[in-house]
């Protein structure tokens, strides 16, 4: 089986039947990375040696019959997760030399399961971006067309899964950073409910919005990986002590009789016709599966992007204050005093988009503007959350596009931050509401770029959306398509 066809569920079976080993599969991934990543640039740091060691240990564990659900599975981690002893840059020059002394809770949980961590994946700097173009390591490229962005900020994670470099990956989603790249790369991505997965050890962008989630090749893998990372963590005060259901066990329950809401505000002008066509077709698939599709309204959708760019930047401006050159990271100091060192370190260490957001957020929190911006945004956030609560009184889940267009071309939106921000218009409201949502492949553009379908669930309704996603996946074959990688980068666009 080729590396790009490996799945968690498939490998578990093969490990059990001793048809392959973790070492063999890990080596297959490493070879695949070697042959593809010069072009795709999904990896920031590779952990070949450590990965093979862990794989060998996993094989022993498998032999002893002491395996956990994910023992021996080669995974990649967005470079935002603290990994003890393994460089963690968060896509930034300022953390170019940063080697954490501790593991994030999710990393710890994966390690306990005997997961093989193959390496750290490319991302927008401090998860601020929708195209991976703000990464200090340069953008990862879309495996379906290297002239296009993979989406962001978890672009490297989506690319690595789509290109068969890893079996699955973890990303984080603050305003769409799992779902949008998953959609653009034709893979499955899930943003859990706020509080479902621990944020401890995940480098913070916007603390009230950040969530960790899986990016996988199919829905079942997504359920398995979510099950492995979800659950209460006493080290994260915002994690919720609520039992983790067996997501895999309920996958096959179907959608017959389920009420699926179609929010009017998500089917608007500006939605690319090809995307609209694919989503409309998906609606028909669900109708055919016996679901009841009803129109609903989320009336405050229009304010989401503005609201998000106040709250997220305000939190970020404070979260990123610790990168001051004093205790860790890259320090720039050509003599002068303390203030000079701060200025030089932060001027050289942060990229343009991060600086823009720190300034926006600082402004929003400033005395005299706080009420008009930050407080107002919090009030709007409450209204947006209430929109969802009301909608979920009528329906079990919501169905929308993930992004207004398929993956855009590299450089297409870098000059216009506002256009870039608007590419997250359908994903941002979910983070503001704190609920869960996922992206699954639902078609392709004529140019051959994947299109994503978003399923939004009630808070802690991950089981519902996984079930609906699985039903759709069974009824369609979009997830089986793979990037052929026969396209060459345009000379002029690189």
């Amino acid at each position, binding site marked *: 089986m080729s590396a790009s066809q490996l799945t968690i569920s498939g490998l578990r079976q093969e490990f059990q039947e001793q048809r392959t080993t973790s070492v063999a599969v890990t080596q297959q991934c490493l070879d695949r990375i070697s042959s593809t990543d010069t072009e795709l640039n999904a990896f920031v740091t590779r952990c070949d040696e450590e990965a093979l060691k862990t794989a060998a240990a996993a094989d022993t564990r498998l032999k002893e019959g002491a395996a956990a659900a994910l023992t021996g599975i080669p995974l990649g981690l967005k470079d935002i997760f603290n990994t003890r002893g393994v460089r963690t840059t968060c896509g930034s020059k300022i953390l170019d030399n*940063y080697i954490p002394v501790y593991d994030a809770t999710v990393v710890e949980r994966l390690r306990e399961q005997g997961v093989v961590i193959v390496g750290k994946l490319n991302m927008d700097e401090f998860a601020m971006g929708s195209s991976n173009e703000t990464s200090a390591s340069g953008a990862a490229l879309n495996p379906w067309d290297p002239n296009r962005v993979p989406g962001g900020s978890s672009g490297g994670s989506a690319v690595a899964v789509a290109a068969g470099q890893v079996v699955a990956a973890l990303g984080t989603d603050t305003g769409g950073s799992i779902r949008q790249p998953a959609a653009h790369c034709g893979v499955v991505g899930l943003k859990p409910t706020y509080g479902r997965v621990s944020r401890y050890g995940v480098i913070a962008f916007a603390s009230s919005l950040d969530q960790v989630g899986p990016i996988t090749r199919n829905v079942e893998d997504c359920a398995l990986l979510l099950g492995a990372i979800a659950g209460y963590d006493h080290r994260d005060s*915002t994690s919720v002590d609520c039992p983790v259901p067996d997501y895999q066990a309920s996958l096959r329950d179907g959608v017959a009789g389920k009420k699926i809401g179609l929010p009017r505000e998500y089917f608007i002008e500006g939605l690319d016709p090809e995307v609209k066509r694919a989503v409309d077709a998906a609606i028909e698939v669900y109708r055919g599966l016996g679901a009841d599709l009803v129109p609903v309204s989320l009336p405050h959708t229009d304010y989401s992007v503005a609201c998000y760019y106040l709250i997220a930047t305000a939190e970020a*401006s404070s979260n990123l204050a610790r990168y001051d050159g004093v*205790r860790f990271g890259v320090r720039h100091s050509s003599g002068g005093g303390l203030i000079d060192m701060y200025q030089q370190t932060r001027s050289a260490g942060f990229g343009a988009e991060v600086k823009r957001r720190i300034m926006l957020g600082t402004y929003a929190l400033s005395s005299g503007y706080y009420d008009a911006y930050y407080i107002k945004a919090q009030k709007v956030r409450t209204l947006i959350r209430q929109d969802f609560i009301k909608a979920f009184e009528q329906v079990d889940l919501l169905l929308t596009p993930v992004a207004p267009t398929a993956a855009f071309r590299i450089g297409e939106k870098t000059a216009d931050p506002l256009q870039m921000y608007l590419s997250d218009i359908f994903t941002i409201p979910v983070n503001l509401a704190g609920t869960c949502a996922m992206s699954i492949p639902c078609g392709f553009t004529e140019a051959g770029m994947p299109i994503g379908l978003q399923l939004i669930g009630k808070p802690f309704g991950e089981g519902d959306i996984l079930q609906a996603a699985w039903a759709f996946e069974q009824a369609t074959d979009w997830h089986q398509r793979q990037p052929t990688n026969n396209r060459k980068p345009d000379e002029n666009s690189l």
Partner: protein
Amino acid sequence: MKTRYETVIGLEVHVQLTTASKIFCGCSTAFGQSPNSQTCPVCLGLPGALPVLNQEVVNAAIKTGLATNCRIAPYSIFARKNYFYPDLPKGYQISQFELPICEQGWLDISGEELADKRVGITRIHMEEDAGKLLHDSAGGSLVDLNRACTPLLEVVSEPDMRSAAEAIAYLKQLHQIVVYLGVCDGNMEEGSFRCDANVSVRPFGQTEFGIRAEVKNLNSFRFIKQAIDYEVERQIELIEEGGKVVQETRLFDPDAGVTRSMRGKEQAHDYRYFPDPDLLPLEVSDAWIAEIRAALPELPTQKRQRYEEELGLPAYDASVLSAERPLAEYFEALVARHNNPKLCSNWVMGEVLGAIKENDVTISACPVTPELLAGILQRIEDNTISGKIAKTVFSDIWQTGKSADEIIAEKGLKQVTDTGALDAIIDEVIAANPTEVAEYRGGKDKLMGFFVGQVMKASKGKANPGLVNKLLKERLSA
């Protein structure tokens, strides 16, 4: 000139709590460990680390709030105070801003030369401390983050005090309370109880406040008094010379006894406070408050009042005995065993305090326990020994740890109350001092003391002084 101005003082006190671990992580709060040995990803502010609130800190805040008559907020919020400084690892301090845990309290202060007065407490909030900067000889600076993230309460008073003496009375009372509650060790030198004073002056009769200066770095009661006095003088002089007080932070220099402007660091900070998204709003139930209220110890003012009203002690005794919790506990244990409060008070304030001071031990380590002391007092009251002999018994107990009865028996200290035996001694004394006898009989009553002394001396202190007095009077007037 000075008499035309009224001083206005408000105080912000930082109370470092005695919890075993820090406010947002499990690191130890022990003082004086090697630099950065008590740190973890959370208090180092490493990327990705998150704070988790220590419940013991909330308990201490509620205790302090109740003891200072505050309203305990059912819902309070942690906020980030944003500023850059190398001793502040996250680039923000987690504190409370808009909704603190305690509000609207007060303390009644009193003292010699002070009119009784109620000082308002605006708020008490919880926050984390910063680390410490150490400057090396090469001109570089080093950061020690052991203290970072240790728990503090900030107690903010209303601008209700009108003199340094009132400010000191308020501070001493607050200090007494937090130490009584056991939430703070009260060590001012180590910075466990430190204060910033907001000082302004205004002409008497003016309703609005003058412009205030905030004086920092005050870590002893003496310095606080010096700093306030200096600041008041400075401001009045400035105004009299036609100048204006500017709102600023000033640092007290204890060596020079002056306050100095910190203007360089001041620059009108905008701390950009906002609710910390990493911490949930804190909800405190009525049951939680009730539980803490029920377990509150009796506080010094309550004790003082009780000692006066129920035990009948003079105000001075009551205030000395209630000043420190271990002393009050010693006294109360003694009274429980020997129900003569005034006699108990005399002994505790006299022999006990004298001896522990002389031997440099704490009251809790006093070898003459309340039980042993009660044994002495009993023998005084049943006339087995005199007060004077009792003092030697006390020091014997201090040395040996034996009981009063054992010592009295061993040393034959039992008082002589046998009239026959005393008569014989009195005969000898009268015979030996004919001149004095004649003078006494001639009206020099004062000589009675001399005769008592002689008899006591001859009995080696064992004679019952009351009886001696009585017998002497009879014999000399005969």
